[in-house]
């Protein structure tokens, strides 16, 4: 494979990886921005999305799953927020740590009890299950689809945050919740909605990831750390930061794995270390 061919294929690989990381990270960062909660259960919502996606796909195919699963996960997230998290806003962060950690355990085991311990297959949609010839080598169209949908969703979220009233509320609440409350807005409603949206986005990530990695109980464990890292690199609470972080980590990971596979375990953390030492708030973050 020639150098330009190699660069193109690996870059598209990296973009598809970045898309999955982005779906997971954007929800995490939105939730943190609004609620200052570090949601340890975020990876399990991602996993829930994959499993619900599996069942939904068996009923109505991939596109049906992609529509249904994120909504289901979003609702589950909102119920969790309404039922448990809302009581804890007056408390300090260790309460949230415990509750989200406990929720991660509970949800993981519920999934295991519901779907069994084995990995489950989710097939990519018929339209994207083939290959396209990229620089003379077969490249899965599904990955192109992933990269593109990552970009599309990023665009949609950006417009939503910038142009819509609710997006404005979200941005305002993340900067000064008291002021927003004083202006007569039900801040609790905003929080619940954001939590639901964040979990729903994680659910999208889960459904989209399933054809690549199968729906399995181990999905959440590695992804949650990846999500944290990219959000920290990008800046906690910063939407563009989560995009930047995802792309940066994915590219470092892909090219690093190729040239220095022995360091593959460490790349992400080295990048995070570097970024935090130079800019403690993350690349695009506000707080130090």
């Amino acid at each position, binding site marked *: 494979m020639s150098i330009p061919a190699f660069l193109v294929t690996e870059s598209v690989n990296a973009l598809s990886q970045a898309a999955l990381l982005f779906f997971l990270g954007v929800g995490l960062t939105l939730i*943190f921005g609004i609620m200052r909660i*570090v949601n*340890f259960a975020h990876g399990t919502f991602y996993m829930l999305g994959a499993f619900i996606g599996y069942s939904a796909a068996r009923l109505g195919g991939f596109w049906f799953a992609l529509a249904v699963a994120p909504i289901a996960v979003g609702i589950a997230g909102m119920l969790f927020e309404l039922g*448990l998290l809302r*009581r*804890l806003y*007056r*408390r*300090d*962060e*260790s*309460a949230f*740590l*415990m*509750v989200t*950690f*406990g*929720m*991660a*355990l*509970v*949800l*993981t*085991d*519920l999934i*295991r*009890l519901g779907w069994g311990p084995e990995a489950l297959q989710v097939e990519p949609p018929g339209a994207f299950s083939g290959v396209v010839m990229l620089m003379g080598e077969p490249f899965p169209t599904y990955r192109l689809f992933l990269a593109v949908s990552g970009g599309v969703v990023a665009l949609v979220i950006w417009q939503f945050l910038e142009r819509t009233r609710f997006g404005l509320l979200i941005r305002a609440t993340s900067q000064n919740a008291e002021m927003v409350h004083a202006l007569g807005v039900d801040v609790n409603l905003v929080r619940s909605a954001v939590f639901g949206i964040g979990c729903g986005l994680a659910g999208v990530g889960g459904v989209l990831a399933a054809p690549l990695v199968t729906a399995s109980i181990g999905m959440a*464990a590695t992804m949650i*750390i990846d999500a*944290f*890292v990219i959000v*920290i690199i990008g800046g*906690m609470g910063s939407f563009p930061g989560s995009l930047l972080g995802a792309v940066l980590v994915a590219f470092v990971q892909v090219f690093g794995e190729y040239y220095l596979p*022995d*360091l593959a*375990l*460490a790349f992400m*953390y*080295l990048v*995070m*270390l570097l970024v*935090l*030492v130079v800019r*403690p*708030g*993350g690349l695009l973050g506000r*707080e*130090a």
Partner: protein
Amino acid sequence: MRNLYALAVAGILLALAPLALPTYGMTLLTEALILGLLAMSLDLMVGYTRLISFGHAAAYGFGAYACGWLLLHTSLPMLAAIPIAAAMAGLIAIGVGWVCTQASGVSFSMLTLAFAQLLYAVAYKWTSVTGGSDGLAGIPRRPGPFGLHLFATRDGFYYLVLAVLLAAFLFCRALVSSPFGAVLRGVRENEAKTRALGYNTRLYKIAVVAVSYGFGALAGALYAPFAGFANTELLFWLLSGQVLIMVIVGGTGTLVGPILGAGFFLVVQHQLSNYTEAWALFFGLIFIAFVILAPEGIWGFIRTRFRRAAPETEYRRGVAGAR
């Protein structure tokens, strides 16, 4: 006076444990005490200084590997290898603390995580020294010096762990009641104000990180000869999360609470997994219940129940701290 009374009672009960518990119970208790030391060390950072570390497993794992390596490759007795490993960790932690305290809040926590994961990666890959994914096996409880065999036996080792825990506890209690501890609490409550009072809060933070990691490594150094092996699981972020939970469940900022939290965590996990595969489910529910029902943790719960008659001279900020 009241505290010393309770401490003495606890000490006596624990000293008599080998007479009451079967051997596998003693094994569990010894491990609980070791984890208790680890949790207490984390409490110095989390409970007294509000430095939430996601990477405390690094201290534990480092202590275990260092002590294990010393016992396997040198002829140092156990009683020497353990403190050497802990001291090494404390020194290295000064550097780690310096880097991590560049940031604060969640960024600080993530930096501690980064260091722990990097250490994990190193331990994983540096097979010649750490045994890679296999870890170190066959770590001996070498007796000595002067042929002192007492601590190499099962019950003897238990008493060693108990003694170390008690000594560490007394040290930490003295530390947090001292002016140093007052500054830590100042940092916890309002760092800007403390700095305005003229304290170099960064130095204090680095110091508490070093002490905390040092004691955490001490726990790890006790673990290596206890289990006879050290593996990469000891460095994994899952353990860091579990220790943090032990501190919170036990009651942050109390020193005793985390020790109880560690014991509670270990025993409950052990017993639950004996009875059901879905133990993680119940475990998670228990944590959630704790947050709702016993916000100050186990120790806070015990204190409010049994100390109704005694006035609190110092309000401990537990999980229910008001904003």
